[in-house]
């Protein structure tokens, strides 16, 4: 049994040895094979040269010719997104009211980064007169003429009070409620409309909610007029004003006191939240068929925010409010120069004392466009090519890439060199011909490219093409990149 095992071990050793030898020889063979080659040497020298053909802008569409005239962008129709340029204009000579949190945010997006427009508090000064509306007749030294409350209007001799004698009281008279609570009280004055035949003093007492306070005396004149008794420090809250009442005291025995009317004059400051912010475009493309103002709103305040357009002499409203999301409105009738100005304005601008509203604006832009296929569809002279080396060449167009072809019912690109050469044809959204035939471009010649375009829908399509320029009787050729942008 031991011998049997020993024989097997020998066999295994032989097999492993053979395998190792094979692997080593395999490496050797590979090395020998990889090292056996010879080299052919190619030396080349090249120099920079100007290109033989120069592209030039045509008269149809808009052509952008890049450096050296060796590549171009041909735009038929136009589609421009123009974000608002600044918030520093003042076309109406009226200072902005309100604030932008981040005007730059309006100039980009959509990106959920908002410019928050916030109303500014421009307090408005106002005055309210609270007339007598009741007389509890607890003080009866004076004679009352007419009907209660006697002093609620200037209506002598229908309703009034009078007295002859010193230290005679009449009252108590209450005032109409103000209905106010938040406004800032600037001054309070008790006003008495009266006269005294001998120009004597009249004293007024006012109830401040807890005590009667004398407002001092004023000398009544011999003719009717208002006399003022200052009560600012006494009636310093709306609660005290609404609870105020007065009584009058004659301060002389000579002559007769007559009072026809009494009231509280309250001067106060009213909060007034306003928004009036101009924003402006300065280099607008204003000659397109479609011109829309587009504003994307975020969280909008409860108060409506209006949008006005400056027509050169005044503001015209184009939106009565902005919603969250896109707010698009045609401004074709206003967009007639390179400057275009709008303003955001709060809908309530007078006595807006309820809330300081805010509105989020993500983006503000003008979208202007003209569809290439909406007119006759023929664009002559979209691009010229001029030979500059005084040599003869062959040229052709070759489309090599594209986007959004499906909306092109017909897009045909021609080179005209005395006769039309159809170079690229797209029919019903697909290439009918992607590469044109070679045609002659002779020394110093200028040939031009023209197009026919019909579109089925709005959008922008691109056809990327090479202008190939070949040496006659040779396969040496140059390639210029021409991008056709069809809106």
């Amino acid at each position, binding site marked *: 049994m031991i011998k049997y095992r020993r024989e097997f071990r020998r066999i295994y050793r*032989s097999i492993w040895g053979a395998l190792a030898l094979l692997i080593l020889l395999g490496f*050797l063979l590979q090395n020998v094979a990889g090292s056996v080659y010879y080299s052919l*040497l*190619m030396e080349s020298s090249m120099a920079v*040269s100007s290109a033989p053909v120069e592209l030039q802008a045509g008269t149809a569409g808009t052509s952008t010719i890049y450096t050296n005239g060796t590549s171009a962008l041909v735009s038929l129709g136009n589609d421009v997104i123009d974000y608002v340029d600044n918030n520093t204009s003042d076309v109406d000579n009226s200072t902005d009211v309100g604030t932008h949190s981040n005007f730059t945010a309006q100039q980009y997006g959509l990106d959920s980064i908002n410019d928050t427009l916030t109303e500014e508090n421009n307090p408005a000064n106002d005055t309210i007169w609270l007339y007598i509306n009741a007389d509890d007749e607890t003080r009866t030294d004076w004679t009352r003429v007419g009907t209660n409350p006697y002093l609620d209007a200037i209506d002598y001799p229908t309703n009034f009070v009078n007295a002859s004698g010193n230290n005679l009281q009449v009252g108590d008279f209450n005032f109409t409620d103000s209905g106010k609570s938040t406004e800032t009280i600037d001054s309070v004055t008790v006003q008495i409309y009266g006269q005294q035949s001998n120009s004597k003093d009249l004293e007024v007492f006012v109830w401040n909610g807890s005590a009667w306070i004398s407002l001092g005396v004023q000398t009544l004149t011999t003719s009717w007029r208002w006399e003022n008794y200052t009560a600012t420090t006494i009636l310093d809250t709306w609660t005290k004003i609404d609870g105020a009442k007065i009584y009058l005291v004659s301060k002389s025995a000579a002559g007769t006191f007559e009072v026809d009317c009494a009231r509280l004059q309250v001067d106060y400051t009213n909060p007034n939240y306003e928004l009036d912010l101009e924003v402006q475009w300065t280099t607008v493309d204003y000659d397109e068929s479609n011109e829309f103002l587009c504003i994307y709103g975020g969280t909008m305040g409860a108060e409506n925010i209006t949008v006005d357009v400056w027509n050169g002499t005044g503001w015209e409203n184009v939106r009565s409010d902005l919603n969250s999301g896109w707010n698009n409105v045609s401004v074709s009738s206003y967009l007639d120069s390179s400057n275009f100005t709008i303003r955001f304005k709060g809908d309530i601008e007078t006595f807006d004392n309820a809330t300081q509203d805010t509105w989020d604006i993500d983006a503000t832009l003008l979208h202007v466009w003209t569809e290439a296929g909406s007119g006759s569809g023929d664009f002559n002279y979209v691009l010229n090519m001029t030979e500059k080396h005084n040599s003869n060449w062959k040229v052709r167009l070759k489309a090599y890439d594209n986007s959004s072809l499906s909306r092109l019912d017909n897009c045909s690109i021609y080179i005209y060199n005395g006769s039309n050469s159809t170079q690229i044809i797209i029919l019903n959204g697909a290439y009918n011909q992607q590469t044109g035939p070679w045609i002659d471009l002779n020394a110093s010649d200028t040939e031009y490219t023209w197009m026919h375009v019909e579109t089925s829908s709005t959008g922008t399509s691109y056809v990327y093409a090479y202008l190939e320029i070949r040496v006659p009787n040779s396969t040496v*050729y140059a390639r210029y990149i021409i991008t056709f942008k069809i809106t």
Partner: protein
Amino acid sequence: MNLKNLPAKKTMKLLALLLTSLLIASVSAFTYYSLTISSTITVYAANVYFIEGTDNNTGPGPVILTLDSTNTTATITGLVAYKNASLTYTNVTLVYNNGGSASQLRLAPYTDPSTNPEDFVYVKFLLNATTAGDRRWLNYTSDGSSWTSPGSATSWTTTGLGASAMWPVVIMTKANATATASQTVDIAITVDVQ
């Protein structure tokens, strides 16, 4: 029981003998093949060499191809590069196989460009094999301040250049849009033949 008398023992011996024979045969074959290749290189002139293409002596430039007496060195002058436009020389020279069997080829850098990187965008060499899988590129590119050259040779072709077949070496050039006219660059490559 004597194990030497078992049939399995004989079988094992036979198997070991067979494997050893195979091993000797294999080693002998590899060794012989290697020696044959070496002798071909040392004795005969190159079967694969450059020949003139149809674009030689044509514009722009014009491009001029000069071959040495053995057609193993090709010197090409008059190549130009247009500003901001590619220029393709499709057929200035070709690699021709005058041998009776296919040869594998590759492109390898020899002298890298060192001048005027600000004037050029790229110079590319294409071994334009008939089958796409055998095409090999050697690209020299410039970022405007320095050249980037291939660090090593391309891989060898797989199908190879067949007997009496010829492949053009295509040259593509492009100059920077702001390049200065007449600025030059020299590049040398090799077409390695196996």
